[in-house]
């Protein structure tokens, strides 16, 4: 057994007990990256030297008899929109190509304090806007299950890194599905926590009322352990909530007896691939056989989610991205004649096509004369969408849906038509609009051996139930233990 086949939980146990050094664990990951990365391109940068320094420091603490923390010696890949002090943070954008993080994001600080090793920054769609990593200014990440397909996005690099076992766990961010969609397409587990569960301090903001940071892993136990480390109120983020953080790992053994699962009819519609539907329905049956009770439910405003999202997210983005001015950091068209030209050219030349499209869309929706028709209207419909879920959760404990309408697609298939690309997020967006926790886990493969994801949505702050359902399912199915072999299909 090599260190690469360890889960994060096993690795931390081995390191704490002195059966494996943090340095050896880190070396094993870096070696795996060296062999797989030329095909996958999951990373924007790896931190080889800094990672090994961190690992040796952990080993010294263990040798000195100190408690090295819950995540001691576990290498973790970080989406390249989370700040790590002293490391580049590019958001896969030309505008931040040379930017160096000046502080640790709160999730990074908490992981650092728990003994985790940061092995690299992973690729994403520029500023997390996209569903395939094709919008990265640097390169498109490949799906480890089929190198001719995309890994999903925007956190495609973080999902691919875990799927290809280049890291046992990683962090991503999810604004409209950017953790769950790539998790589904890469055959790993991805969790978007409840809005407010995890501090967003140090996450480069996309849409502040929707963004959340969350884990990728191969097991529910690893996701539980990682969430445990990063969750909880933070003075640096006024929207992080002082809600009790339960012991997620200890809660995993819960029985599913009597658990009420809702199947919303609006998520089993035309456009849903029959193979995906079959796998999802079989997974729900498997949960039923473990004692869960399945109920048909309705979320009547589902059809409006995408329209609401594509007003609210670009509006918030257009405001958040106004900080890029070519003066304080980032790409600067310095030869511009005056200040206005400097702003316009730095932004025009520094941002890629999708980012500019969303800034334009958001600026239009917020502009004088249109605000009420678009932004205010979308906020009201958001209320109706949230009320659908409030009502549904009076009768059920969790909701089960497909994570994506289809398995992984090919690059170029959707990139020329923004609306087609946006539709690949159709099942994941409602969760962000309603602020709920959502998890995607592998539940089978298509006949072409592409992974399929089951999405579970929970009540606010009830990540524990989602994780315990995933854990119970894993005990009976080994989808999550299957490892991709890099190949190309027709």
């Amino acid at each position, binding site marked *: 057994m090599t260190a690469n086949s360890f889960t994060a939980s096993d690795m931390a146990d081995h390191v704490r007990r002195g059966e494996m050094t943090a340095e050896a664990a880190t070396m094993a990951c870096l070696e795996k990256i060296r062999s797989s990365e030329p095909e996958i391109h999951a990373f924007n940068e790896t931190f080889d030297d800094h990672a090994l320094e961190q690992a040796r420091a952990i080993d010294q603490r263990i040798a000195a008899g100190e408690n090295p923390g819950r995540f001691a010696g576990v290498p973790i890949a970080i989406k390249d929109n989370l700040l790590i002090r002293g490391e580049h943070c590019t958001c896969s954008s030309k505008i931040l190509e*040379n*930017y160096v993080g*000046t*502080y*640790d994001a709160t999730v990074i600080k908490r992981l650092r304090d728990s003994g985790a090793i940061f092995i690299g920054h992973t690729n994403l769609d520029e500023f997390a806007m996209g569903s395939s990593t094709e919008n990265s200014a640097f390169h498109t990440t490949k799906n480890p299950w089929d190198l001719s397909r995309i890994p999903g996005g925007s956190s495609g690099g973080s999902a691919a890194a875990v799927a290809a076992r280049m890291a046992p766990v990683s962090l991503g961010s999810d604004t409209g599905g950017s953790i769950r969609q790539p998790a589904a397409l890469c055959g790993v587990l991805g969790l978007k926590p409840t*809005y*407010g569960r995890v501090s967003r301090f140090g996450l480069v903001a996309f849409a502040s*009322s929707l963004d959340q940071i969350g884990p990728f892993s191969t097991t529910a136990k690893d996701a539980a352990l990682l969430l445990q480390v990063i969750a909880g109120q933070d*003075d640096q983020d*006024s*929207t992080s*909530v002082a809600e009790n953080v339960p012991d997620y790992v200890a809660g995993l053994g819960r029985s599913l007896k009597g658990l009420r699962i809702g199947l919303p009819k609006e998520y089993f519609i035309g456009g849903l691939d029959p193979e995906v539907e079959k796998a999802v329905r079989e997974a729900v049956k498997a949960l039923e056989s473990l004692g869960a009770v399945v109920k048909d439910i309705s979320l009547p405003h589902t*059809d409006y989610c*995408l*329209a609401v999202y*594509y*007003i609210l997210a670009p509006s918030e983005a*257009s405001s958040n991205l*106004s900080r890029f*001015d*070519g*003066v*304080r*950091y*980032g790409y*600067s068209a*310095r030869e*511009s004649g*005056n*200040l206005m030209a*400097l702003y*316009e*050219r730095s*932004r*025009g030349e520094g*941002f890629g*096509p999708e980012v*500019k*499209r969303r*800034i*334009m*869309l958001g*600026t*239009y929706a917020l*502009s004088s004369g249109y605000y009420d028709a*678009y932004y*205010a*209207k*979308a*906020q*009201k*419909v*958001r*209320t*109706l969408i*949230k009320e659908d879920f409030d009502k549904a959760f009076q009768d059920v404990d969790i909701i089960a849906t497909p994570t994506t309408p289809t398995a992984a697609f090919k690059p170029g298939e959707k990139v020329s038509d*923004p*609306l087609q690309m946006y539709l690949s997020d159709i099942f994941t967006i409602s969760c962000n609009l309603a*602020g709920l926790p959502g998890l995607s886990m592998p539940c089978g493969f298509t006949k072409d051996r592409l992974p399929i994801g089951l999405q579970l949505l929970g009540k*606010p702050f009830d990540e524990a139930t989602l994780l315990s359902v995933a854990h119970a399912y894993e005990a009976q199915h080994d989808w999550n233990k299957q490892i991709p072999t890099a190949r190309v299909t027709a």
Partner: protein
Amino acid sequence: MTITQKDVEHVARLARLSLTAEEKELYRAQLESILGYVEKLKQLDTDNVAPTLHVLPLSNVWRKDKAEPNRLSTPDELLANAPEREGPFFKVKKVIE
């Protein structure tokens, strides 16, 4: 839903984005198509619905005004990212012509 070239230029100016002629036409057509899709929101009567700004029942969150010196960026770290600096200052183009 019609978006004109003039609309695009107005919005680009508000957003401080320089766009090429091809980009202007591309975004004009794409904005028209996306906003056309969004029109479906008009089917819903929302006269008596309150807007959701964000999902948390929070207002006026306070914390102690206490610095965490170890977490603070140093002036040098911040200025190291500046495209142009002069001593301990960001260098900015003339604001008043």
